[in-house]
């Protein structure tokens, strides 16, 4: 029954929802970022971070510190929190939490396959993998020669198996095919996640639809921009777009034929939610586009935690009774928290790199404030 989730959500999800809201209050604020941006060395950064929630993870690191160590320890904190939540969760929350990590699994698979193609050492590649996306047989990915073997040897046992039906070919793996494979897998994953959230129903379905639609649209735009000037045909490009989201289906048809940045911008400006993003770009640089997308994503993720979404008014007929409570008893807070934390780690990496390379004037180019 829609609207009555508050009655039974807390049986299985109440404790974990309260925990994740507690974690969210430990995210770095604008004041913390200001302090960090004014640091001179990485040791200053370490000192500031020890005063925040990252304290226990960083305080035992010996100097001299590397930026990769900082990022690694912060990611470790994210992984610990995720594992704590996962082991306490019951169905369907545990499935939901696992879905959140499949994106990282896909990235890890592509990382190892690409690295093997360029003759890198497997151990070195394993260390670079994101810890949230690890699975048992990941090291055997280095053995596969083409996609069919990849699937048969390794991936058939992983949760990614159902996503491979669209991209099994006998072609050998090379850079272009790997990118296409990555995007095809990610498309299947997003659609699967979307279907799963729709099945859950209620506030989870509504809020996750919005967040996943934004993700799908953003990937569509990135695919379009990145494939400008490559050999990817229009039909292939269209096959990589997901089948949901604001841009589906008409926006996808227009994006598929775009040949440069201005045409992309022309297409996107027809959609009111994305217009402010593209209006901010002056010369079509893709770096500011990334930052603009991240800012929009952070804004939507924070909405999942607290404020009323205006989108909710469109879905039901009988008015706005009790919607504020809907925004408490749902699973989208978990997804939002993981994404916000990843954004924070990206921010920390950027700040550390700027400080390490003495380019503090560029710090604000890419830091997205969450609060």
């Amino acid at each position: 029954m829609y609207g009555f989730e508050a009655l039974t959500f807390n049986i299985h999800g109440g404790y974990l929802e309260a925990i994740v809201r507690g974690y969210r209050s430990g995210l770095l604020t604008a004041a913390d970022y200001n302090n960090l941006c004014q640091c001179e060395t990485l040791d200053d950064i370490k000192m500031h971070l020890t005063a925040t929630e990252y304290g226990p993870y960083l305080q035992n690191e010996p100097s001299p510190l590397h930026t990769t160590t900082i990022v690694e320890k912060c990611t470790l904190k994210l992984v610990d929190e995720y594992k704590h939540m996962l082991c306490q969760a019951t169905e369907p929350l545990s499935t939901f939490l696992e879905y959140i990590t499949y994106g990282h699994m896909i990235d890890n698979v592509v990382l190892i396959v690409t690295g093997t193609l360029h003759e890198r050492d497997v151990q070195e590649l394993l260390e670079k993998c994101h810890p949230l996306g690890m699975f048992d047989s990941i090291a055997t990915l280095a053995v596969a020669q083409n996609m069919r073997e990849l699937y048969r040897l390794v991936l058939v046992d992983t949760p990614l198996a159902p996503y491979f039906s669209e991209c099994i070919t006998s072609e050998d793996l090379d850079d272009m095919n790997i990118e296409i494979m990555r995007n095809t897998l990610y498309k299947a994953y997003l659609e699967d996640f979307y279907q799963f959230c729709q099945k859950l129903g209620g506030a989870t379905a509504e809020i996750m639809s919005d967040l996943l639609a934004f993700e799908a649209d953003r990937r569509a735009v990135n695919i379009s921009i990145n494939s400008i000037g490559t050999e990817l045909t229009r039909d292939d490009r269209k096959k990589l777009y997901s089948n949901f989201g604001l841009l589906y289906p008409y926006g996808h048809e227009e994006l598929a034929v775009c040949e440069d940045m201005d045409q992309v911008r022309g297409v996107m400006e027809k959609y009111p939610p994305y217009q402010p993003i593209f209006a901010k770009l002056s010369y079509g640089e893709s770096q500011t586009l990334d930052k603009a997308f991240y800012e929009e994503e952070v804004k939507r993720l924070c909405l999942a935690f607290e404020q009323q979404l205006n989108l909710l008014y469109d879905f039901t007929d009988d008015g706005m009774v009790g919607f504020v409570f809907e925004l408490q008893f749902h699973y989208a807070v978990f997804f939002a928290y993981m994404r916000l934390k990843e954004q924070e780690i990206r921010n920390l990496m950027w700040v550390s790199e700027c400080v390490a390379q003495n380019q503090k004037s560029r710090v604000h180019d890419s830091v997205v404030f969450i609060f």
Partner: protein
Amino acid sequence: MSASAIVVGASSSWSRAMLQISPYTFAAIGIAIAIGVSVLGAAWGIFITGSSLIGAAVKAPRITSKNLIRSETKDDHFVHFMPKISVIFCEAVAIYGVIVAIILQTKLENVPSSQIYAPESLRAGYAIFASGIIVGFANLVCGLCVGIIGSSCALSDAQNSSLFVKILVIENLVVHLGCLE
């Protein structure tokens, strides 16, 4: 028996069957609902609040630890206990149901068997049944409401202890008074 049926003016067989049910039945069911359903509502409310409260308290103890280090005003101690008031309100709802059940039970008197189906005793039976249902279901809804509000209160108290608590406590009181009235 048929004499009393003619006296009361029953017309169909269903209403005659209804009148044959002893008013003790109705009264007893009413009392059972008064206490049973209101305790159900209170318990439901307590688990809704309690699970959120425990999860939020994992992070919120930093409020009390800040007190130990910097000795802030007594307000913080007071504030940290606020969400537990929601649980206490739910408890009060259950107790109210128990009190009403006890009061109703004292109204159950021994009636000589010739008088059991007299209109006065039927009316008394129905009256106790009605009050039992009213109290029971009102407390069910009130307990649920206090529980949900208490859960939101616990979560927001963990984030920002100054602002939300007083507002939500007042709302708790309003809900509580509404149910009692």
